[in-house]
């Protein structure tokens, strides 16, 4: 009897589910935007925001949440998407990857959100990815990351590793005449992959890697590696240390008598945004270079407006880093794609996405590549005592995203 009841509920669920899957593509009329099976009414559309509010990652993800809320508010002030105001359901991933997967599923299955803006670490994205692929959701992922991924259900609004790294190393080699590199990172996938790409590229340029080193996440004692740097005398220390370790590293670097502004060696990071400097202290990090696509100090008009709006909404002392800006792009890119598709339907939005461009992006101009990453420029900035970067270089062209770089794997 038990099994009868169970199999009947099972069947019911299966039926309902497959029905919704089969029926969804059948609705083709643009006027029927409400009947995609998603949480869309005559005047609202619901999206999800999925970041860590608690746990160790909350530090990093707060900025992204703020940026996404700002973008949603601005879009609503402009009249919304397809005449519908965006409402958002925010879930806490709690810095815990299964929780991310669980909440992603809740957003897609229970709340039927039209898109999700979220995740920060690669681990959380890897955890939610199967969920998004299974339930055909759309994720806008803001963080610069290691690449090696290209999902039809994700739009990567941050840079993949090659975009960020190659330009930075070329710049150091050409402008600063760097010959010897020291690679230093936190011990996990992004720094390791990044350094692999960096090492290959350095080899290709005929230059030399004199050291490569990883420390556990959260490590706070860097005196040994600082000594090694002193001994090996590299021209460039290429850094992908993340989180709280950064603070310890730069403070100890300075205390060890290394003046970063003298550029002997030159410190080039791909992981310290303005957000991190807030914790490190501008005076401790003055003179290091960062290679990324966005700095708060970018001098264009789009950015000035964005920075002003952001500060109006979240307070004047707040700073905006690369990821925060990338998170801000998410809702706008989604809006543009929805409007191009004339529907909230995920398949249609996906189809419409490649080629979507944003001329109002704070970073200037971005366009979605058919591999779901963004064409974007890379900038080099030098850190100032006030915690901001001064832009010293900008790639002349948009750089093509290449998540599976040949010869770098």
């Amino acid at each position, binding site marked *: 009897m*038990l099994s009868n*009841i*169970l199999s009947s*509920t*099972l069947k019911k*669920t*299966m039926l309902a*589910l497959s029905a919704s899957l089969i029926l969804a593509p059948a609705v083709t009329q643009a006027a029927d935007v409400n009947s995609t099976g998603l949480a869309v009414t005559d005047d609202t559309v619901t999206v999800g925001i999925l970041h860590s*509010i*608690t746990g160790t990652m909350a530090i990093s993800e707060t900025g992204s949440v703020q940026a996404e809320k700002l973008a949603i508010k601005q879009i609503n002030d402009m009249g919304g998407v397809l005449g519908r105001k965006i409402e958002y359901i925010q*879930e*806490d991933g*709690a810095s*815990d*990857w*299964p*929780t991310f*997967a*669980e909440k992603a*599923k*809740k957003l897609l*299955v*229970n709340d039927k959100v039209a898109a999700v803006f979220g995740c920060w*670490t*690669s*681990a959380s994205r*890897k*955890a939610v*990815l*199967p969920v998004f692929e*299974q339930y055909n959701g759309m994720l806008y992922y803001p963080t610069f990351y*290691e690449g*090696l991924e290209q999902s039809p259900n994700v739009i990567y609004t941050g840079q993949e590793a090659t975009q960020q790294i190659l330009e930075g190393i070329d710049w150091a080699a050409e402008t600063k005449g760097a010959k010897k590199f020291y690679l230093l990172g936190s*011990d*996990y*996938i992004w720094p*390791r*992959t990044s350094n*692999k790409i960096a090492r290959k590229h350095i080899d290709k340029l005929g230059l030399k890697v004199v050291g490569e080193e*990883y420390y*556990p*996440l959260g490590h706070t004692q860097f005196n040994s590696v600082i000594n090694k740097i002193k001994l090996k005398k590299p021209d460039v220390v290429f850094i992908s240390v993340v989180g709280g370790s950064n603070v310890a590293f730069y403070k100890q670097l300075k205390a060890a008598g290394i003046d970063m502004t003298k550029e002997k060696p030159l410190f080039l990071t791909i992981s310290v945004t303005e957000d991190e400097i807030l914790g490190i202290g501008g005076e401790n990090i003055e003179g290091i270079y960062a290679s990324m696509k966005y700095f708060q100090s970018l001098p264009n008009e789009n950015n000035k407006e964005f920075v002003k709006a952001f500060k109006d909404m979240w307070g004047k002392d707040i700073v905006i880093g690369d990821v925060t800006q990338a998170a801000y792009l998410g809702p706008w890119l989604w809006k543009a794609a929805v409007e191009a598709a004339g529907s909230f339907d995920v398949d249609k939005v996906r189809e419409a996405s490649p080629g979507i461009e944003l001329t109002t992006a704070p970073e200037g101009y971005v366009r979605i590549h058919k591999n779901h990453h963004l064409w974007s420029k890379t900038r080099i900035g030098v850190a100032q005592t006030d915690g901001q970067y001064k832009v010293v270089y900008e790639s002349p062209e948009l750089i093509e995203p290449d998540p*599976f770089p040949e010869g770098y*794997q």
Partner: protein
Amino acid sequence: MSYGMRSFLPKSDAMKILLLAVLIMVVFPLSMDIFRLNLVGKYLSYAFVALGLVLCWGYGGILSLGQGVFFGLGGYCMAMFLKLEASTPEATAIQSTPGIPDFMDWNQLTALPWFWEPFHSLSFTVAAIIIVPVIFAFIISVAMFKRRVGGVYFAIITQAIAAILTILIIGQQGYTGGVNGITDLRTLKGWDIRTDEAKYILYFFCCIMLIGCLFVAQYVRKSKLGRLLVAMRDKEDRVRFSGYDVSNFKIFVFCLAAAFSAIGGAMFTLQVGFMSPTFVGIVPSIEMVIFCAVGGRLSIFGAIYGTLVVNWAKTTFSESFPELWLFGLGALFIGVVLAFPQGLAGLYTTWIEPRLSQWFKSLRSARPPMPSTTADSRS
């Protein structure tokens, strides 16, 4: 005579197991959609760990802060098998070395490491899920208990082991998938584990395994070994001078708890679809202790209810008041330890059970009252 030959499963305990089985295998599936049910399935996989902790900590007095290690080892064994199955040469054609897991390819591995090879076999995997963690637990516990290390020291050393293993897994990402863990698991012997139907089946499988482990735990608890554990916790020297090699019993119960945890880990991997080092570390290990403490460290049933309640609260609270959740969890820790050291089960035996039995008595007052022994109150 009531102290005469008794079954390992007194009527009251049989009722409790039946009640639990009905709850998780009938009530939950009927009242929840598959999304919620899958969540419950995930919680139940933690319940294996809590169950092991009841025997090991509640009965044996051995507090391990490293149960995540065994949960993780079990989970990783399962994940390795599933990952290999997902990494067919066809599915991984774009890699430089097709046929090996994607993260290995990213880390320039060109061949499958030797210790991955046997995980092509399901029967080896099933054996490894139990054997690998148990061997590991055996080594730790022999080293510690034969030298009479216990209590706080044992807790701290197991905690350090959890930390070491986490750093190792994260650092050796070419072999372990690093901090991302082993993700994107798809099929088990060709059967897609991601469909709703599969989720139902895996949920029921998890329930059956849990009830199986519950029977094992009940048997151990009611055997002389169970009484010996209580005796050891109380007066270890007395047991030793009654002619028992005390360390062997501790080793046994620690290994048994490790085996339960490992089964839980494997169930977790199957239901959640991935495994990552975040379940190996210190924080999850301590959380699992609190599941057990909330349920009642002396109650195998309490442990399961405790796990369900805490996780349910975690999910609910963190959905509605994410900022308050840690306050709540922290207060729960302190409250349980200070005010209700016997947890939910303690509340049940002091408040509900007496009333319940009164109610039963009045219900069938014609029958003579059942004899009860004091030991049974500890269930």
